[in-house]
């Protein structure tokens, strides 16, 4: 395929994705499918943001839900306290809070690596979870934050399910394009350098600590966007959004799909959400299926779905 043909194909897929609720309207399952797809895309954004750390910069984190949850609470609380449903305001609150959390947590963790980094991010995210769980006056505590209003943008009410979906799908496309172009820029190339050999990067004159911190903040901000979209979609934020389960979920998505790619985390989010939301109503052991799928990928296909696809493609092309 030529470059132009690829862009046209990609644009067609993008349009098809954003307009899904409309062209699927005749299906009996259209509404359910729209909801599932919406939640998949929210998590795809979240997994993409985590992959900036895990796949691109080589900083595996088990605390990414802190930023997702932080963003979700910030959007919800801002809309309730300020009595506004303006998307720019609540979304800005989410991004700001997530960025601040990522800055603070990032400062504490960027000098560690490997298992220590995993444990440290996990522990610090648990503190955010504990705050969400216990600061009842602000967060609603264990009951969560109910009645989050859906946003309006430029006077357009986005509360109907189809419009809410379009907001999520459009944001997903913007975020994907953003991360894609970020990762092929000198910035992304430098992150790859840090992942592959931080010592050499320092010897070349890169302040790798600052570079890693910046990646943490960028990833945190995008996770905050995903959190806000989750809050609008569900009209509800629970402490679990900032909890370890949510962190692990994103991590599993990245690994199943294929770390260090754009398509990988998206496919991973699709597979995991499909198992959790669709398969779970058909068979009672869906969580076990998810566990087995995960173990299978960890043992047999470290590069995830994208890696399997690449290997198959290479075999087809080889004589």
């Amino acid at each position, binding site marked *: 395929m030529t470059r132009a043909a690829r862009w046209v194909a990609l644009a067609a897929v993008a349009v098809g994705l954003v307009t899904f609720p409309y062209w699927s309207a005749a299906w009996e399952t259209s509404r359910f499918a729209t909801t599932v797809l919406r939640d998949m895309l929210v998590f795809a954004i979240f997994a993409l943001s985590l992959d900036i750390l895990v796949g691109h910069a080589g900083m595996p984190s088990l605390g990414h839900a802190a930023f997702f949850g932080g963003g979700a609470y910030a959007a919800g609380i801002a809309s309730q306290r300020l009595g506004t449903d303006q998307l720019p305001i609540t979304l800005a609150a989410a991004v700001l809070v997530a960025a601040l959390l990522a800055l603070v947590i990032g400062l504490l963790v960027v000098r560690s690596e490997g298992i220590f980094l995993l444990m440290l991010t996990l522990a610090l995210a648990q503190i955010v979870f504990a705050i969400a769980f216990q600061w009842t006056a602000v967060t609603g505590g264990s009951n969560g934050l109910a009645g989050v209003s859906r946003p309006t943008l430029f006077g357009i009410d986005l509360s109907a399910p189809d419009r809410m979906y379009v907001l999520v799908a459009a944001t997903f496309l913007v975020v994907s394009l*953003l991360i894609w*172009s*970020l990762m*092929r*820029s*000198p*910035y992304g*190339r*430098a*992150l*790859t*350098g840090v992942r*592959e*050999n931080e*010592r*050499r*990067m*320092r*010897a*070349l*004159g*890169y*302040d*790798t600590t600052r*570079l890693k911190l*910046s990646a943490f903040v960028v990833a945190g901000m995008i996770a905050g966007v995903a959190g806000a979209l989750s809050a609008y979609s569900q009209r509800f934020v629970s402490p679990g959004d900032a909890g370890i389960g949510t962190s692990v979920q994103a991590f599993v998505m990245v690994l199943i799909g294929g770390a260090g790619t754009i398509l990988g985390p998206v496919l991973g989010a699709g597979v995991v959400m499909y198992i959790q939301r669709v398969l779970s109503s058909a068979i009672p052991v869906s969580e076990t299926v998810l566990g087995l799928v995960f173990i299978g990928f960890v043992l047999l296909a470290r590069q995830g779905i994208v890696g399997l696809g690449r290997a198959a493609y290479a075999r087809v092309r080889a004589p």
Partner: protein
Amino acid sequence: MIEVRELRRSFGGVKALDGVTLTVGDGERRAVIGPNGAGKTTLFNVLTGELPPTGGDVRLAGAEITRLRPWQRARLGLARVYQRTELFAPLSARENVALAVAARAGPYRAFRAPPRSEYAAADALLERVGLAGRENAAARILSHGERRQLELAVALAQRPRVLLLDEPTAGMSPAETARITELISGLDRALTILIVEHDMDVVFRLADRVSVLHEGRVIADGTVSEIRGDVRVHDVYLGKAVSVA
């Protein structure tokens, strides 16, 4: 260009550097020789800031840099070829060098593909070290000798004022060694070079002066011919090198 005073570094009980004092002039080419474990690599690690010294100080072009971090020293013009190759294994030779070329402009350039000029500069350097035609090969599939050449290209891409070479020809074939020696010898005379090398032919070919390190101390310091005639140097080092060879 480089002044080192009373530099000390120990690991537990091992005194890898036991009071090293050394002055390397502007544009000078200085060889540091000594038996295995003499502290040569440790000296480089302290010079680049990868290891903090336990005592003493380091000056670069008159400025005290003992407390600067490695990336800050690199920005002041210090570049290094590692004894054990440090590259970006899955990246192509071109990307490896381009990362070094791009270090000056810094990493905070987003949303735009890296400029072609960086890759053109990288290709030119690869050609200079003898890797023309290997631009797209991943560093990890290069032969040992090629990786040493790539190391050198990466260091040169930083456009340094001071180049630290830690056994640049180690493990190379005689032909590769000759080629790299020629290349280093032909570098800009304004560039200050510190070279650690076991191959005496290379040392005598490249160095203006030689410092001999033994058990963390400089035991001799002089021009190439002075060092050749020094009895102690023969005892601790040259004699051994000959007997090993």
